[in-house]
């Protein structure tokens, strides 16, 4: 099984590129810090956000029913999908029933999770991702590498080359302004020709039966104000109880995600366009099972800001693709194995457990604690390879017995300095690939203390 470590190694080995990726994301973390510093009540906001989410999850069925009632009153059609298959079928049916073949989409991690694009494309529907970063990766036939900054892994030259091929921009042109202008014109055509628009949902409001979509580009607005049909897809955990709760989340979201005070557009949909239709698809797809797990349910509070990715020293140096899941980084390292423990068993170990993610998370998910707990779950379920568990069993046997530990230590410190270097630093020694082993002193601390206990001055 190729896990995170195997994919991360080549990424990290290309040091200039890894440093470039690392710097780009660190910069976003710094912007987040500056914004957070400007809000004296920042930590209180995080606390409130965490509490609102915890409360909401404890009564989520009630809130979803309230949302549905109020949404219906607004003329919104509400659909429910147990899993990805139902979600895709629902979306397809809405489009197919109306003879729609041209769809524009703004960012929705949920639809990526459900693999909606290929499903629709196989059924003759053209799907255009309209977020610039998403359009870029769509044209490259690759997935996004970050949930907020989908093309963060690409240099402007890569994009210039892509646009030259796909959009006819000038060869070797890589100026971001020029390229963005070309994308604007290209996507404007798609918006104008679209027959339906699909968005995600940042927050759904139980109290008013509406929902909020946040963008900087205006692509969600363009895609839902031109064509008459708007489909909005949401994991059920996106619901908040009251409109006023949006105040807490919207103050945290953009600041955490991109270090901006707010996104350019924060659009509140409370009904279809005149002469149009508005559909909301509420999706479970394994989330209710997570809800039932006390250790991991807080991961459902995630508002998909990406701050954990920006701050994670491992993510910054290994890139989103190393995680092999649509949501990478610290939160992805929980969501992915919660969905499929054996496929994603390496992810909870793709962390030094530094805890930076937990400290930036706007909804105070205890990410690194959950990652630690997940490791235990994987071992209990024997998803961790046998030889690793055996190695630990041997270590415990030795460490549980003082005499064995002392002997082993003494042997190690005696033998290692006497072995030829080539043997010590052979392929069996992953520590030694790029590092020297620690010193092997003649006497351990406990050896020295023997003098102390005999009232001699320890050396």
């Amino acid at each position, binding site marked *: 099984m190729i896990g995170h470590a195997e994919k991360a190694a080549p990424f990290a080995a290309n040091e200039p590129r890894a440093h470039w990726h690392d710097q780009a994301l660190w910069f976003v973390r710094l912007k987040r810090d500056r914004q957070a510093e400007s809000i004296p009540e920042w930590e209180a906001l995080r606390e409130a956000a965490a509490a609102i989410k915890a409360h909401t999850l*404890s009564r989520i069925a009630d809130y979803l029913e309230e949302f549905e009632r109020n949404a219906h009153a607004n003329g919104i059609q509400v659909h429910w999908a147990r899993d990805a298959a139902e979600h895709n079928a629902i979306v397809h*049916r809405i489009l197919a029933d109306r003879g729609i073949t041209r769809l524009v989409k703004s960012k929705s991690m949920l639809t990526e999770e459900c693999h909606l694009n290929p499903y629709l494309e196989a059924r003759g529907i053209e799907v255009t991702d309209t977020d610039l970063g998403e359009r870029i990766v769509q044209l490259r036939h690759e997935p996004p590498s970050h949930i907020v900054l989908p093309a963060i892994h690409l240099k402007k030259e890569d994009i210039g080359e892509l646009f030259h091929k796909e959009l006819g921009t000038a060869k070797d042109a890589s100026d971001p*302004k020029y390229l963005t202008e070309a994308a604007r014109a290209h*996507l404007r055509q798609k918006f104008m020709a679209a027959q339906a628009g699909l968005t995600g949902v940042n927050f759904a409001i139980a109290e008013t039966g509406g929902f909020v979509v946040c963008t900087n580009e205006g692509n969600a607005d363009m895609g839902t104000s031109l064509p008459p049909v708007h489909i909005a897809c949401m994991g059920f955990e996106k619901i908040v109880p009251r*409109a006023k709760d949006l*105040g807490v989340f919207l103050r945290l979201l953009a600041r955490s995600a991109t270090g901006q005070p707010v996104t*350019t*557009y924060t659009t509140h949909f409370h009904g279809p366009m005149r002469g149009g239709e508005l559909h909301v698809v509420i999706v479970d797809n394994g989330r209710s099972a997570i809800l039932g797990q006390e250790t991991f349910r807080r991961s459902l509070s995630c508002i998909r800001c990406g701050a954990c990715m920006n701050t994670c020293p491992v993510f910054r140096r290994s890139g989103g693709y190393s995680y092999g899941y649509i949501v990478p980084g610290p939160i992805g390292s929980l969501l992915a194995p919660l969905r499929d423990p054996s496929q994603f068993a390496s992810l909870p170990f793709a962390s030094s457990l530094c805890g930076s993610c937990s400290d930036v998370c706007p909804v105070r998910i205890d990410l690194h604690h959950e990652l630690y707990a997940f490791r235990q779950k994987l071992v209990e379920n024997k998803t961790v390879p046998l030889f690793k568990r055996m190695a630990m069993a041997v270590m415990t046997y030795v460490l549980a017995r003082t005499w064995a530990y002392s002997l082993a230590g003494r042997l190690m410190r005696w033998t290692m300095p006497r072995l030829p270097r080539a043997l010590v630093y052979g392929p069996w020694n992953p520590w030694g690939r790029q590092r020297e082993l620690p010193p092997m002193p003649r006497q351990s601390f406990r050896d020295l203390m023997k003098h102390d206990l005999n009232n001699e001055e320890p050396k």
Partner: protein
Amino acid sequence: MSSRVEASGRDAILASLRRNAPPASPLPEAPAAIVYDDPEKQFAETFTSVGGRFVCVASLADIDAKLEKLEPYTQARKVASLIPGVGRTIAGVGRTNVDLAALKDPHELEGLDFAIIAGEFGVAENGAVWVAGSALGPQRAIFVVTQHLALVVPADQIVHNMHQAYDRIRFERPGFGLFISGPSKTADIEQALVIGAHGARSCALFLVG
């Protein structure tokens, strides 16, 4: 998928959620939030920092003269205004030349260079302006299809923070409404900030009074 399947999907999901429900916990109120000594100044600074252009005027009648100083406006061939009396030049060559009421379809907005829209209030902490759907006229797409945007906001309608904002918003139901904070933008190409993504390339704000 038939509605019967969907109905059973709904029931199954709700049942699963109730079965897995965590223990009860209280719904908190928002913490005491930042207030500024000079909210108008804070708003102006923040709006400018997100790429907007901030202009103070004494009354609606003063806006036209200021508009004439804005290149996107003077260069605009097609102009629409949703604010009576704004966007008509003194020189008599009426600027607004798009009759929004006559448009049958939002697609007909394409080609609109400059739109003038009323904002209900501004939020000092983030330079956001609340624009209710009813202020967008018959074709709500106007705010995003237009190449350039101008917002007109009364000066005594600046709140300090988002909590105060939500205290005063009354959602039109059914309806539409949004916060606009400056021009559209993206940093998706190597984190280089480009102003003008899919929506307005520029956003001016006239604070009146």
